[in-house]
């Protein structure tokens, strides 16, 4: 049983086709890295899983995207429920202009939870999950913007975890971070894998190698190769993949 499946997916921005017949199946509790040059469609593909592309005018999808065997583009799908199940972390940390505590509590409150004790417990668990608790436990009422970039990014991951999704999408989550913060996020991805299915877009080849179980290489809207990360980084089957990961592309 797969957690995420895409079957014959085409995606269009107006007349321009951004994804061409993408077929990928992702197992639960794995990390999948999407790699490829800028404009290859990897972020577009990632955003299909929580229907973020719906927010862009004049876009169109064909084919099927299944999460837990359910077509998330079928009629009658509740997009809010889908996004509770599929959390997302972006390139730049984007905490809300609120306190550290309220950033994590926000998702619970907008989902109608008002039990103070429940919220406190969930906030603490989520912050502990991202290994940030020791650093912020005494300043939960301080603005989130007072945290460092790396701490802000971990806070954003805690915010995503608070509503207990089963999938986490990460769009270049460490590209704005220093090596130490990057290492912390990578360690976190490794920890989170036991509970979540993670899909990460990254431009850092070594990061893809370090954190992911499978890697998918996209080029000009096509999926060129998808397979075990160890195989992709030691013996890719397609020459174009090899040229890309070894930096000989173009």
């Amino acid at each position, binding site marked *: 049983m797969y957690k995420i499946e895409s079957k014959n997916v085409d995606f269009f921005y107006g007349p321009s086709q951004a994804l061409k017949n993408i077929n990928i199946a992702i197992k639960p509790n794995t990390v999948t890295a999407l790699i490829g040059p800028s404009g290859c469609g990897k972020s577009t593909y990632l955003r299909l899983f929580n229907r973020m592309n719906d927010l862009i005018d004049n876009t169109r999808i064909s084919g099927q995207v299944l999460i837990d065997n359910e077509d998330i583009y079928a009629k009658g799908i509740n997009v809010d429920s889908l996004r509770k199940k599929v959390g997302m972390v972006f390139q730049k940390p984007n905490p809300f202009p609120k306190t550290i505590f309220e950033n994590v509590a926000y998702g619970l409150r907008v989902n109608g939870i008002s039990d103070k004790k429940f919220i406190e417990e969930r906030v603490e668990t989520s912050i502990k999950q991202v290994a940030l608790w020791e650093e912020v436990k005494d300043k939960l009422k301080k603005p989130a913007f007072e945290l460092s970039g790396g701490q802000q990014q971990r806070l954003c991951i805690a915010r995503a975890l608070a509503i207990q999704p089963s999938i986490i999408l990460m769009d270049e989550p460490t590209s704005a971070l220093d090596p130490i913060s990057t290492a912390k996020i990578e360690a976190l991805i490794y920890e989170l894998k036991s509970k979540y299915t993670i899909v990460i877009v990254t431009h850092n*080849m070594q990061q893809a*190698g370090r954190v992911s179980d499978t890697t998918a290489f996209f080029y000009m809207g096509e999926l060129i190769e998808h397979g075990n990360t160890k195989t992709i980084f030691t013996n890719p089957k397609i020459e174009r993949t090899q040229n890309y990961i*070894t*930096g000989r592309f173009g």
Partner: protein
Amino acid sequence: MSHLDSELQQLKAETIKMWTLVNNQLRKGKEALINLDKDLAREVILSERRVNAYELKLDRDCENIFALFNPVAVDLRCVLAVLKINNNLERTGDIVEGIAKFVTNVDHNFDKQVLEITRAVEMYEAAINMMDDVLDAFDKENTAIARKVFLQDELLDDINLKANAAIAGYIRSNPENIESALYLLSIIRKLERVGDQAKNMAEEIIFYIEAKVLKHRSKVEKQKNN
């Protein structure tokens, strides 16, 4: 050409230099053996230091490439192969040094008869050919040439297997030459190990180019192209 490409090219060039040095040592060892040229044998022993210096340099070069360039796929396999070939070449250098030491220890020329019945010279030539071929395979990145080596090694194994009986027979009829005959047997053993090193290097070249692991496979499997 990318920075990594030029580093890899330089690494291969250095490997070929070391390889050429080792193969020349091997040739000189043969001349020293046939002509009992002790000066040449001493030259081989002395220049072993150069082989060792190359080994240290190539180790360091590989380490730098790993640390600075994080090579992947074919580049990673290239550096891994060079690292192991470097080790094989150093060992081959040691083996040749050992042969040269035997030559310096022997009192008088090897009897022509013992050289003939053991086929030692033929074996030595085959070992040199194997080392030349495997170098050629590395230089040209040609796995067909590398695969030839597995077949050539059979000759070395065959001569090595028959050496005990040949030497024993020779000693029985020429007891006065027992010492040189035993040295020759040791040299044959060493040549067999040169063949093993050449085979290991051929396996590394195939791993580098085709990403196939041939270690611990049968000879027949190794000679196949897939």
